[in-house]
Every structure is written in structure tokens, then in C-alpha cells.
């Protein structure tokens, strides 16, 4: 390249119609130039052949990215719905492809379309805002109604004189030189300052977010969206000075009975005769078998008239007994529940543990039904009451079942004689004292 060519970007020839352009393009192509191009307001047919443009690889890039979109679409749905957070929808399999087709399809299209657009820009090296050709006044008509061929000075065969002659001979409307753009389009100084300040400002939200994420604070977290977190209401168990008693919660009117809580059947609910004295928690003196006769409530000896004692009730009672009572009193009622055995293994008596009572003991047998009901409901000595957990009818079922246990388990020898049963036919019921538990079992 000669020295004068260094200031030259290229040589531009303008044409008014397609035919002139095409003829010139073939000439330039045949002359062996590589760094040249034609410029047209619209895609001209046949120019690819006239210029020797090879087909673009864009479709292959798009194909690869489309397949990537497909894989990512499937992977996303598998990971989110079948692996990381499994959705059970109407008993369908965790992972079923048909329902994932629409989203996978949209992902293919989205990936392909964006690749098409961005790939086209990248292959064309766009955006490219600074171009020496844009400095030429005549070149502005290229996007309107003119056609041009530009042979760039960067071509290794470039010779300004020969190119001018070549283009001039090709019925060009005008041939002109395009100088290299030497004007430096620096941005003004104030813009740099402004950009620096703006850049710094953009870090502020980020810094605030980081501080909120990693620093500790006494203050409650800043609520961006309150949703319904703060409402004009009082919550339970809080103060409210508006009421004389200062409570936010209101007490029910005196004598209010909640639905289903009317306890007018004394037999059923308290195990005593109708309208008689209802004890709270009776303390049973181990020696004296309870308070003196005159102070004793009128315990019910049979079952409440509301209850029907039949096999179904006994079965219900057994089920409830096994759930609530057997852990201490044992399934046989002999006080060999798992809790009792464990306490024995731990030698818990030294901490004040009292063995659960054998329901087969004589004093337990001597209680009236009402007393047993009352003990189930309110508890006795170290046993807590189960009134809150077991509904009254189930408590009666338990009473019935306890009576059945007492009648069938641990019958004493005298009674056997009276019934004429051979004691050898019966297995003895063990008591807590018969059980030997090694402390090695304590951990089990």
C-alpha cells in the first residue's frame, strides 16, 4: 500500500439502478478484491452471486441454541417439579412428559429467536455506530434510493487509481474517496463526571441490600410490601385499654355454655347420682380408702342410663384403654405398662416415682363405677386426669373395659375354688414385683 492510501478508508461508487450495481459488482469480484461491499436500500436479488457472498452459518447456530433451549426447558421442569420440589398432581406420575411439552416448545422458540436476532447482529458486527461512510453526504441516500460499491483501502490489492478507473468504467453515477474518520468524537468532560457519579449511585441499592442481608439489627426488618400483616385489629392475649378490664379478648357472659358443653346429665358427665354433690378432685388416702362415708359423693355404682353396655362398648373401651391407659397400667391392667417397666429399670423410685396401680388389686376392684369414671376424668394422686382428652362416653367405655379386666384377670385362688376351675389351667398374672428388669435394659 502506498503512503497516500493510509488516509483513505475506501473508494465509493454510486449507482442509480440495480443493473449498474450488479455489473460493477461482478467486475469488482472478478478483479479479485476481498475487502469490498455493496450498499443498497433493500436486499437486492442476485447480489450474493454477483459479489460471491457465501451462505451464512447463522442457521446452524440457531439449531444448536434451539436444541439447548429444548434441553433446558425439559431440565428446568424436571428439576423444579420432579426432583427439587415434587408436585403430586391428581395422583399423576412425578415426571410425565406430555404436560411439559408446551413450556419446552416455548423455550425452543425463545432461544432460537433470540439467537437468530443476536447472532445476526454479532455476525454483522452490529451495533457499530461509528463508520467513516456515514460521514459522506452522498452515502446517506443509500438508505433511500441509491446503490453503492465501496472498495476498502484495507484490501491487499488496493490501488486507488486502479479502483477509481474500474468503478468509473462501470457506469457509476459518481465516484468519490472516503477518508478515514480522524475526528475524535470524545464525549464532553461533564459527561464523564456525570457517568462516574451515576455509576457510584447505582451501588447504593446494592450496598443497602447487602447490609440488610448480612448485618444484624435490633429493629424489625423493613417491610416493602405490607400485605395484610398490619391490620386494624387486636390479637388474642393482648391488652386493649378500651375495655375496663384492659383485655383485648372478651369473656363470655356469666352462665354461658358453649355448644355441646351442657352438663345436665350428672350420671353421664360426673359419675354421680343426678343433682348430687359433684366432687372436684378426690384425694384417696391409701390406708383409709377415701373420705368418710358421710362426706363421700353419691357415686354411681352401675352405668349411666344414657349408656348401653354391650360388646361394641367393650371393644371401644379396649381400644381407648390400649391408647390412653395401657402405657402405665398395662394391657392386662396389672400395672405392667411400658412406662412402668422403664421406670423400674431406671429404678425411678429413688426420684419419687410411684408405680402405676394394678387395676386388679382389691382396692381398685372395690371402687364404684362412678369413682373409676371420676379417676379417669380427674386423675388421682400422681395420675393426671384424662377428661380433656377422652370424651365422657369413651370414659365410660373404659370403665366398662376395666371392669371386664378385673373380672377376667388375676382371679384369686378362693374364687377359683368357688367357680370350680383348676388353677393349673390358668396362667398367673404377673405383678410389677415379679418383673426383673436389668438396668442394662434401661436404655431400650
Amino acid at each position, binding site marked *: 500500500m502506498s503512503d497516500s492510501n493510509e488516509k483513505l478508508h475506501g473508494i465509493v461508487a454510486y449507482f442509480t*439502478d*440495480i*443493473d449498474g450495481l*450488479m455489473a460493477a459488482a*461482478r467486475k469488482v469480484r472478478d478483479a479479485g478484491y476481498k475487502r469490498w*461491499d*455493496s*450498499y*443498497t*436500500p*433493500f*436486499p*437486492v*436479488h*442476485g*447480489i*450474493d*452471486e454477483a*459479489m460471491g*457472498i457465501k*451462505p*451464512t452459518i*447463522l*442457521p446452524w447456530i*440457531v439449531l444448536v441454541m434451539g436444541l439447548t433451549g429444548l434441553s433446558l426447558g425439559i431440565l*428446568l*421442569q424436571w428439576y*423444579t417439579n420432579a426432583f427439587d*420440589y415434587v*408436585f403430586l*398432581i391428581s395422583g*399423576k406420575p412425578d415426571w*410425565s412428559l406430555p*404436560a411439559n411439552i*408446551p*413450556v419446552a416448545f*416455548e*423455550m425452543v*422458540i*425463545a432461544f*432460537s*429467536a*433470540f439467537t*437468530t*436476532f443476536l*447472532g*445476526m447482529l454479532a455476525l*454483522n458486527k*452490529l*451495533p457499530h455506530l461509528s*463508520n467513516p*461512510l456515514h460521514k459522506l453526504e452522498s452515502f*446517506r441516500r*443509500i*438508505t*433511500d*434510493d441509491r446503490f453503492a460499491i465501496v472498495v476498502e483501502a484495507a484490501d491487499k490489492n488496493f490501488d486507488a487509481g486502479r479502483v477509481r478507473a474500474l468503478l468509473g468504467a462501470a457506469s457509476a453515477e459518481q465516484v468519490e474517496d472516503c477518508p478515514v474518520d480522524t475526528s475524535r468524537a470524545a464525549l464532553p468532560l461533564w459527561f464523564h463526571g456525570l457517568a462516574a457519579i451515576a455509576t457510584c449511585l447505582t451501588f447504593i441499592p446494592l450496598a443497602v441490600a447487602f447490609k440488610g442481608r448480612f448485618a444484624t439489627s435490633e429493629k424489625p426488618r423493613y417491610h*416493602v*410490601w405490607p*400485605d395484610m400483616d398490619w391490620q386494624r385489629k387486636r390479637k388474642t392475649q393482648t391488652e386493649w385499654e378500651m375495655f375496663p378490664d384492659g383485655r383485648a379478648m372478651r369473656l363470655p357472659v356469666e352462665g354461658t355454655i358453649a355448644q355441646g358443653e351442657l352438663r345436665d346429665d350428672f350420671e353421664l358427665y360426673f359419675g354421680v347420682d343426678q343433682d348430687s354433690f359433684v366432687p372436684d378432685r378426690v384425694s384417696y388416702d391409701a390406708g383409709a380408702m377415701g373420705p368418710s362415708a358421710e362426706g363421700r359423693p353419691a357415686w354411681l355404682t352401675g352405668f349411666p342410663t344414657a349408656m348401653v353396655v354391650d360388646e361394641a362398648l367393650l371393644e371401644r373401651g379396649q381400644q381407648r384403654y390400649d391408647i390412653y391407659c395401657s402405657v402405665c397400667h398395662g394391657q392386662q391392667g396389672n400395672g405392667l405398662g411400658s412406662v412402668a417397666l422403664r421406670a423400674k429399670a431406671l429404678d425411678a423410685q429413688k426420684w419419687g416415682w410411684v408405680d402405676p396401680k394394678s387395676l386388679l388389686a382389691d382396692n381398685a376392684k372395690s371402687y364404684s363405677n362412678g369413682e373409676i369414671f371420676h379417676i379417669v376424668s380427674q386423675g388421682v394422686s400422681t395420675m393426671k386426669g384424662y377428661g380433656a382428652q377422652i370424651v365422657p362416653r369413651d370414659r365410660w367405655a373404659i370403665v366398662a373395659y376395666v371392669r371386664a379386666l378385673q373380672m377376667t384377670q388375676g382371679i384369686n385362688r378362693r374364687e377359683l375354688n368357688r367357680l370350680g376351675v383348676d388353677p393349673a389351667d390358668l396362667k398367673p398374672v404377673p405383678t410389677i414385683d415379679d418383673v426383673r428388669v436389668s438396668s442394662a435394659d434401661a436404655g431400650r
Partner: protein
Amino acid sequence: MTISDPNSAIQLGEDPRHRPLLVEGTGEDFGSVTQAVAGISEQPVQQTNKAWVAAFMVSLTLLALLGAMLFHLITTGVGVWGNNNPVYWGWPIVNFVFWVGIGHAGTLISAILFLTRQNWRTGVNRAAEAMTIFAVVCAGMFPGVHIGRVWVAYWLFPLPNQMDMWPNFRSPLLWDVFAVSTYASVSLVFWYMGMIPDLATLRDRASNNIRKIAYGIAAIGWTGSSRHWHRYERAYLLLAALATPLVLSVHSVVSFDFAVSQLPGWHTTIFPPYFVAGAIFSGFAMVLTLMVPARQFFGLKHIITMNHIDVMCRILMATGLLVGYAYSIEFFIAWYGGVQYESFAFVNRAFGNYWWAYWIMVSCNVIFPQIFWSKKMRRNLWVVMLVSITTNIGMWFERFVITVTSLSRDFLPSSWGYFSPTWVDMCMFLGSFGLFFTLFLLFLRFLPTVAMAEVKSIMPQAHGETSNSIHGQGDHDHAPAGGASPAPADRQPS
């Protein structure tokens, strides 16, 4: 350029190899097309078309109404709408489907008509694509605010969050999120990419600095290089090929929102094609509604010609018949299927308490477009405007009928109800037109309304004297790899 009767070939069935001219008038050349289109956006502000200013003021007012309604809705809650038991999908979803349907014609014209080499599309495709994007903006807004707590709208997307939860990919509502957002973004890319060469034209004609900078950035340095055009055309073809299944998928997925449920009246397999036909129908109606006044006010009658309007009227009539066919098949299947609830749903649709909506729909969508069998009517702009507007009304009612009548009376008579919209419903719908028209009018005023480069490429001068082919941008797509260029049968090699 010679004068020719553009109708002759289409109307009289002449030798189809000689296509009529798509740009009408005497002495039209590349420069005059540029001047006609670019001139619109170059008018000084003071000389803006009075009709445009009036329309813009009305649109802005409606847009302000929409803003007020959105503020009221978001600060108060979705209870301000008429949505209530049993109709929980009221106007917001009706409006969503209405707008997203309108948004189909743009991509259809751009992509499907491009692939099928319908060159007449060049006159209207740009505006139709713009319409698509603005309609999808309006459409996206409705489900966006329908979710109630708009500030957690990001839950719609599979983003990692503090709850360690993911959206349910087996829900059609989530498919809808993907379909509509893909459609919106791909349409935007398609529209913008098509506009780059025309933005470069505006840049090169720009007379003041603001225009130079704005259009200069938007045109991203486009020079019209043939090497660029080569990749650009290939990219455009690819986008068209991708957008075609996309446009068909979007309304199919929208229809899944309904069809995948078990509600009588929704649970039908005909919904996807039926919705797509309806979408094209409503989209073309909206294109007509917009383009007939626009060509009048902005002097584009020679580019958006009576032939364009004629062709679109015929498409409108054809898709209207498709929609009518779908209506009747729905009834047939309801009877033929023998399911009590299905039969009831359709009888209720036509003769129940929403009978008026049903018959508005049938009249507007099936009966009125039949007027276009007559060529005289297709060329009477008043009739065209009237029918395109009634079609829009009819298509809104179609969505209303599907959504509301099915929900208001389903399996259990004790839970039947009657839907009544509130004033907020109505104002929001009205306001969405404000949003749409504001955007569209700004587009008409400041962006290249017609695809200049594409129109130029189909003018006779674009083919040179050595070629008698009709330009179609996909024509050289059969190039064998490695070869510089083939010589397809319709093009004479040098």
C-alpha cells in the same frame, strides 16, 4: 414505472406469473416511497395532523383513566371488580383473551404471509406488528393485575425464592406465562429487527440532532451492506419460521387455560384451533380498523392500497366462517357426546340468561362479515370500518360468552349465579384502549409506519432489467452450502 391496474391479475385470473403492482400510482420510485413514509415522522410538531392530535388527546385521557383504575385496584384489592362466586374469571380474563387474540394478526401477517410469499403483506406488516406488540402489552396487563398481589407477580416465573417452592409446570396457567412472554418478546424482536433498515433511513434523513441521535442509536449503525443484508434476510426468514408455530401455539395455550379444566363449555378439544381462528379473525379486524383511517390521514393510500383492504376483508370473511363452523361444531358435539351437563351448557349459552351476549357474538362474527362476498362492499371503506368494528365487538363477546356463561351455571344449580361487572371493570377495559391507541398513535407519528425497504424490494425497479422475477425475500434460500449462489428457476443468472 408504468401504470397498471393492480386488480386485473387478482380479479380476472390472468397469468399469475405477472403479478400486479403492489405500489399504485404514476412515477413512483424508491425516493417517493421513502418520502411518503419517512415524511410522516419528519413533520414538524406544529404541523401534526389535526386528527392525530385529537385522537391522541382522547387516547391519553383514556390512558389516564386506566392509570387511575389500576391505582384504585392495587391499593384497594380485586374486590373492586365484579368477579365473585361463581364467576371468578370475569372481565379481566375476557379482556386478556380479547387483546391477546388481536395480537395475533401482526405476527401472522409478518411470518405466515412471508413464508407463503404473499408480497402484498409489505404494505401493512409493520403496522400490524406494532399493533401486535401493543395489544400484547394490553393483554399482559390484565392477568398481571388479576393475580391480586401484583408485587409478587414474579412468583409466576421459576425463580429461586425464600419459600423453596417452584411453580407448577403442569398448570396451563403457567404454560400461558411462558407462551405469552415468549410471544411478546419474540414479536418485539421481530418488529424491531424489521425496523432497523427503516430506522437507518430516518437516521440518514434526520435534520436535527435529537433525531440524529435517537434514530442513530436505534438503527445501530446499519449501512445497507449486502453482506449484512444476506445475514439479515436469513435471520428474518428464520424468525418467520419460528414465529409461525409460535403464533399458532400462543392462542392454543391460551385455550388450554379453559380446555384443560372440566367445566362444561370449556372442556372441549376443538378449543385450540377454534381460538387460533378467532384470534386471526379479531386481529385482521383490528388491522382494518386501524389502517383504514391511518392510510387516509397520512397519505399512504398508494402503499396501503384498496387491494390490501380487499384481501384483508376476504381473510376476515374466511376466518369468520371458520369461527362460525367452530360455534356449530361445539353444539353438535354437545348433542352427539350425550353428556347432560355439556348439552345444558350449550343450550344455556344460546337460550339461557346470557342469550343476548351469544346472539351479539353470532351476529357480529358470523353474519355481518358475509357482506364481504360482495366486491362492492369490500371496497366501501365505511362498510369495511363498520364490519371490522362489529367484529371486534363480536370477538369480545365471544370471550365473554365462553368465560362467563360457562362459569355462571355449571354442575350444581344451587351455586348458579349471574355476573355483573362493576364500573371499575368497565373503566379498565375502556382504559386499555387508551393504552393501546396511545402507543399506536406514537408509533404512527415517530416510527416508520410502513416497511420501506420491503416495499422497495417488491417494486419493479428492484429487479433490474435482466430479471423478470418477483422478489420474495426467501427466494435464494435454497443455496447449496459452499456455492456462491444458485440460479433458481425464477431468476435469470447473469
